[in-house]
C-alpha cells in the first residue's frame, strides 16, 4: 500500500496478513480448547461431583449483636434464637406443576391444634417473590414455635426449597424495665435503607430503633462473616468448599451501661404504669445516668415477635393516648416550676442584688400587686429572706426579686447549669431542647400569635412558669448546683467491650457547661436546698432520709387551668458531697413535695442502702 509497491504486491501482502490473522485466531481458539479439555476431561470427576450431589452457596454469617449490661454486669439485653421457615428459590422445583404441588402441600400442613401453618395469601406472595429473589431465603413463617419447626423438619424431604433458618433476636429479660433507654430492634425499613447513615445495611437487617439500641447500633452490629457451603439436593448444608476460606463474623461490642439495675427496679416500682411521669437519677460528679424511667412504659419484646403479634402490640402502644412511646425523661417538655427559683435566687446572689439578709418591702400577704394585675402566691408567708423564700417556695419574694434581677441575668445563670435551648447531648436519640425565654426569643416565638414581650412576664418567669425544661435538665441542674463543679454530659455508656471482655472504649466524662458560681452563692443555695427538706415547714420534708443529708426543691407546674399541677421534685444527696441527683415529675398529680418527694426518697434510700451493703461486703472481704 505504500507508494512504490505495485498493486499486485499490495494484494499479496494483504492476503498474507489475513493468513497471519487467521493463524492468530486458530492459536487463541486452541488455547480455549485446551482449557476446556482440562476442565471437562482432566478435572471432570471433581467438577461432576460438586455439581451433581452438591451445590455451592454463599452463606452470610450474621454477627452476634452485642449485649447490654448494667453498671454491675447484670444483663439488661441479650439475644435468643428465633426460627424462621423460609423458601429458597434455587432449591424449589423449576417446573410449574411441581411448584403448584409444593404450594398445595404447604397449604395443607396443620399443627396439632388443627390450625394451618401458612395462610394462602402470604404463601402466594412468597411464591411470587421466589421467581425473582434468587439469592436469599424468602420468609414464610416468622419466629416459628418449636412445634412448627418440628413439623416442617419432619417433612423436609417432601418439601424441596423449604428450610428452617435460625436467626438471633433481641430479648429484654426485664420486660418494660428501662424500655425507653434500651430501645428495641426491628427490621430496617425501606425509608431507612435510603438514608446515608444506613449505608452498608441490606434489606432484612435488624437494626436498633430508639434508645441505646439505635444510638450504638453500629457498635452492637459487629461485622458479618461469609462462607461458601455445599448443600445437597434438598438444600441442606453438607460441608464447606475446600480451599476457600470464608470470613468469620466479628461479634458486636457489648455495652456496659451506667444504669444501676437495683436502683432502676426501685424507681420503676415507685412510679405506677397507670401514671404519666418520668424520673432521672444521675451522678452529678461525672454525668452517669443511674436510672431513668418514663411512664407509661412499653415492652420492647413485642418487636421481636412474629409479624401478627408484633403489629398487634405496636398498634396497642402507638395508638395509646398516654403515649407510651415517648421517653418523657428526655423528650417530655415541662415548665420547670418552682425548682427554677433556685436559678432566680442564684442569679440574684451572683449579681449581688440578693444577699442572705435582703428582705423585700412587700411581704407576702397572699399575693402581689403589679400594675393593674394581682398575682397570687400559694400561701401567706410574711417577710422572708432568700433561704426561707426557697424553703417555703414563696412566689411574692421571687416576683420582686425577678423584677430586680432581670431575665438576662437569670437566663445566663440557668444556661451555666445546663438549662436552655442547647440539648445536653445524652447518648440516646430523641432529646428535646429546653427554652429560657427573653424578650427577643419570646417575640420571635409568638410572632404568629401576636403576643409581645411585657415586663409583667418576668413575674411568671421568675417562679418558673413559661420556661421549658426536660426532666433530664432538672436532674443535671440540681446536681450541678450542688457540686458547683460544672455540668457533665449525661450519658448511659460506661464502657464498650469486645466479646473477650476487653474494654474497647471508655466514656470520658466531659464538662459541657461551666456550672460555676461564687462560693457565697453556692453556700446560700446549699443552705436553701437543705432547708427545703430538713427545716420545719420546708416544702420537701417528705424527701428526707434519716442518715443522709438531702437537699431538694419542689415544684408544682401549672399547665392548664382547672387541672392538677405537674408534681416536680428535684433532690440531691449527700448535700455537701453529692453522689446522686434525682428529678421526678408526675404529670397532673398535684403538689411536688407530696407526690414526687416520696418517689425520689425511695430511689435515694435504695441508692444509699446498696452502697452500705456493698461497703459491708467489701469489709468482710478484706478482713482476714
Amino acid at each position, binding site marked *: 500500500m*505504500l507508494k512504490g509497491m505495485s498493486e499486485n504486491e499490495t494484494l499479496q501482502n*494483504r492476503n498474507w496478513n489475513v493468513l497471519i490473522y487467521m493463524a492468530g485466531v*486458530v492459536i487463541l481458539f486452541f488455547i480455549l480448547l485446551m482449557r*476446556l479439555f482440562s476442565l*471437562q476431561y482432566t478435572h471432570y470427576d471433581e467438577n461432576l461431583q460438586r455439581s451433581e450431589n452438591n451445590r455451592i452457596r454463599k452463606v452470610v454469617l450474621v454477627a452476634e449483636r452485642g449485649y447490654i449490661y448494667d453498671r454491675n454486669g447484670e444483663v439488661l439485653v441479650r439475644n435468643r434464637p428465633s426460627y424462621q421457615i423460609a423458601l429458597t428459590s434455587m432449591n424449589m422445583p423449576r417446573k410449574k406443576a411441581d411448584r403448584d404441588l409444593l404450594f398445595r402441600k404447604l397449604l395443607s400442613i396443620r399443627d396439632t391444634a388443627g390450625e394451618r401453618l401458612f395462610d394462602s395469601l402470604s404463601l402466594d406472595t412468597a411464591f411470587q417473590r421466589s421467581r425473582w429473589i434468587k439469592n436469599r431465603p424468602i420468609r414464610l413463617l416468622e419466629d416459628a414455635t418449636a412445634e412448627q419447626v418440628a413439623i416442617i423438619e419432619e417433612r423436609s424431604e417432601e418439601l424441596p426449597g423449604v428450610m428452617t433458618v435460625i436467626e438471633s433476636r433481641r430479648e429484654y429479660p426485664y420486660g418494660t424495665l428501662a424500655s425507653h433507654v434500651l430501645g428495641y430492634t426491628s427490621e430496617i425499613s425501606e425509608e431507612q435503607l435510603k438514608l446515608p447513615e444506613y449505608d452498608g445495611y441490606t434489606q432484612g437487617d435488624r437494626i436498633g430503633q430508639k434508645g441505646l439500641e439505635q444510638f450504638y447500633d453500629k457498635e452492637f452490629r459487629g461485622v458479618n462473616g461469609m462462607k461458601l457451603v455445599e448443600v445437597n439436593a434438598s438444600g441442606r448444608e453438607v460441608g464447606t468448599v475446600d480451599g476457600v476460606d470464608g470470613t468469620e463474623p466479628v461479634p458486636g461490642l457489648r455495652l456496659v451501661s451506667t444504669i444501676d439495675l437495683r436502683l432502676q427496679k426501685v424507681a420503676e416500682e415507685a412510679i405506677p404504669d397507670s401514671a404519666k411521669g418520668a424520673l432521672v437519677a444521675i451522678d452529678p460528679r461525672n454525668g452517669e445516668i443511674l436510672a431513668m424511667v418514663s411512664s407509661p412504659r412499653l415492652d420492647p419484646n413485642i418487636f421481636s415477635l412474629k409479624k401478627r403479634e408484633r403489629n398487634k402490640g405496636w398498634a396497642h402502644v402507638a395508638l395509646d393516648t398516654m403515649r407510651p412511646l415517648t421517653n418523657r425523661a428526655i423528650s417530655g417538655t415541662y415548665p420547670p416550676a418552682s425548682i427554677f427559683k433556685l436559678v432566680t435566687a442564684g442569679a440574684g446572689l451572683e449579681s449581688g442584688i440578693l444577699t442572705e439578709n435582703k428582705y423585700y418591702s412587700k411581704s407576702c400577704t397572699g399575693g402581689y400587686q403589679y400594675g393593674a394585675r394581682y398575682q397570687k402566691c400559694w400561701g401567706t408567708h410574711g417577710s422572708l429572706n432568700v433561704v426561707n423564700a426557697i424553703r417555703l417556695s414563696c412566689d411574692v419574694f421571687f416576683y420582686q426579686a425577678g423584677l430586680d434581677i432581670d431575665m438576662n441575668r437569670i437566663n445566663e445563670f440557668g444556661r451555666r447549669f445546663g438549662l436552655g435551648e442547647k440539648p445536653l447531648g445524652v447518648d440516646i436519640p430523641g432529646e428535646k431542647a429546653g427554652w429560657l425565654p427573653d424578650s427577643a426569643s419570646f417575640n420571635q416565638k409568638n410572632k404568629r400569635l401576636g403576643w409581645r414581650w411585657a415586663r409583667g412576664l418576668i413575674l411568671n418567669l421568675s417562679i418558673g412558669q413559661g420556661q421549658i425544661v426536660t426532666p433530664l435538665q432538672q436532674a443535671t441542674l440540681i446536681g450541678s448546683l450542688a457540686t458547683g463543679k460544672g455540668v457533665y454530659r449525661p450519658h448511659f455508656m460506661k464502657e464498650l467491650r469486645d466479646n473477650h471482655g476487653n474494654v474497647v472504649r471508655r466514656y470520658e466524662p466531659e464538662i459541657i457547661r461551666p456550672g460555676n458560681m461564687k462560693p457565697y452563692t453556692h453556700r446560700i443555695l446549699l443552705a436553701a436546698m437543705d432547708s427545703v427538706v430538713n427545716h420545719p415547714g420546708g416544702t420537701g420534708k417528705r424527701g428526707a432520709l434519716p442518715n443522709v443529708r438531702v437537699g431538694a426543691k419542689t415544684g408544682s407546674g401549672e399547665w392548664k387551668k382547672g387541672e392538677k399541677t405537674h408534681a416536680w421534685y428535684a433532690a440531691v444527696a449527700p448535700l455537701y458531697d453529692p453522689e446522686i441527683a434525682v428529678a421526678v415529675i408526675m404529670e397532673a398529680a398535684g403538689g411536688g413535695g407530696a407526690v414526687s418527694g416520696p418517689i425520689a426518697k425511695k430511689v435515694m434510700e435504695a441508692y444509699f442502702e446498696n452502697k452500705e451493703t456493698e461497703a459491708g461486703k467489701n469489709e468482710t472481704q478484706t478482713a482476714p
Partner: protein
Amino acid sequence: MKPKRLLDHSLKFDWMFIVLTLALMSVGVSLVYSATIAEDTSVVELFWFKQIVYFIFGSVFAAALVFVRIDWLKRAAIPLYAVALVLLVVVLFFAGDVVKGAGRWIDLGIFKLQPSEFAKIAYLLIFSYWLSKHPVSLFKMKTFVVPFFLFIVPFALVLKQPDLSTALVFIAVTMVGFFFAGLTLTDMFLIVSPVFSVLFSHSQALVFEILWGLLICLVVFALFRRRLPKVLSAIILMANIFAGYASTMAWNMLEPHQQKRVNTFLDPMSDPLGDGYQVLQSLTAIGSGGLTGKGFGNGSQTNLAFLPEEHTDFIFSVLGEQFGFLGCAFVLVLYALFLWRATSISKQSSDPFVTLMVMGASTIFLFHIIVNIAMTIGLMPVTGLPLPFLSYGGSFALTCMVLVGFLLCLRYQARRR
C-alpha cells in the same frame, strides 16, 4: 458437489457464511431457551422468544444492507460517526439509566438504545474509510494524527460510562485496522510491547524479570531491523523501560485494598466470595459437562440457577454443561469457520476499504468471542462482554446482524461490479 458449490468464489452470496450464521443463531436461541426454561411467564415475555424476534428483526436489517452500495457506506461514515458521538455524550450526561451501576442506555420507550453498540459500528465505518484513503506508516508519524483523534473521542466517552470492556473493543479494531493499513507484524509488536512490559513487571518474581529482560532484548532487535526513525525508536524503548519501572512503582504506591481490587479483577478466583463466586459456579457447570454433556435442558436445573446472568454473559457455561467438550468444540469450530469465511471476503475486492471493513468486523466478533469464553472458563477477568449470537440481548444481537449485513453487502457489491 455441494461443498464446492458452497465455497464458489464467483457467487454473489457466500452461502456457507449464511448457513454458519443461521447455525450459530439456532444454537443461541436453544441455549437461551434451556437457560430460562423455568420462568413460567407468557410466551411473548419469554427470553428465547424475544431472542428469535431480535434475530428476525436483525436479519431483515442485514438483508436490506446487502443492497447498499459500497460508496454509500463510505458516504454514511462521517454522519453516522457524528451521530454516535452525540449519542455517547447524551447517554453520559442526560439519559443515564442506571443498569448495573453504569449509565449505558437511552430509553426510547419501545426499546433501549445502547449508544456504545452504535458507536462500534460507526467507528468501524469511519476508521476503515479514513485508513483506506490514508495508509499509516511508522516512518510518517503524522499519518497517525487523524486516526488517533477518530479513536480517542469515542473511546474516552465509552470508558467514562464506565464500560472498560467495550472500550477495549475500540482498541482491538484500531490495532487490526493499523495492521491492514500499512503496519507490519514487527511494527505491531513494537507498539504493543509496552503493555507486555507492564504485565511482566507487575510481579517481581524472577521468571517475570527474565521475561521482561527478554522482551527488552526483542524490542531492541526489532528496532534495529526496522530501522525506524531514531526519535521513535528511542520513544518506544523508553516507553518499555518506563512502563516496566513505573508499573512497579505505581503498584507499590497503591493501598493494599486497591491492590486487592486489581488482583481480584485480574484473577477473580482470588476472591471466591465476590466476583470469583460466579466464575467458580461457571467452572463447575462447564467442568461437570464432561466430554458429551448432560443433555439438552438438563443443565440449568443444577448449577446455573446460581448464575444471575446465565442467559446473557454466562451462556457459554450453559453450553459447556449441557453439551460438554464436544459441544464447546463444535461451537468453536463454527466460530472459526465463520471468521474464516468472513475474512476471506477481503479477497473479493482490491479496495482497501473492503479489506479494512471485513477485518474490523471480524475483529469485533473475535474479540467478543475470546473475551467472553475466556471469562467463563476463568482465564480472563469478569467483564460484561456478551458472546456473539449466543448471549441473550437485543442491542448486541442487532449489532451482530448489522455486521453480518455489512459482510454480505461487501461481498455482494464487490462481485456485482
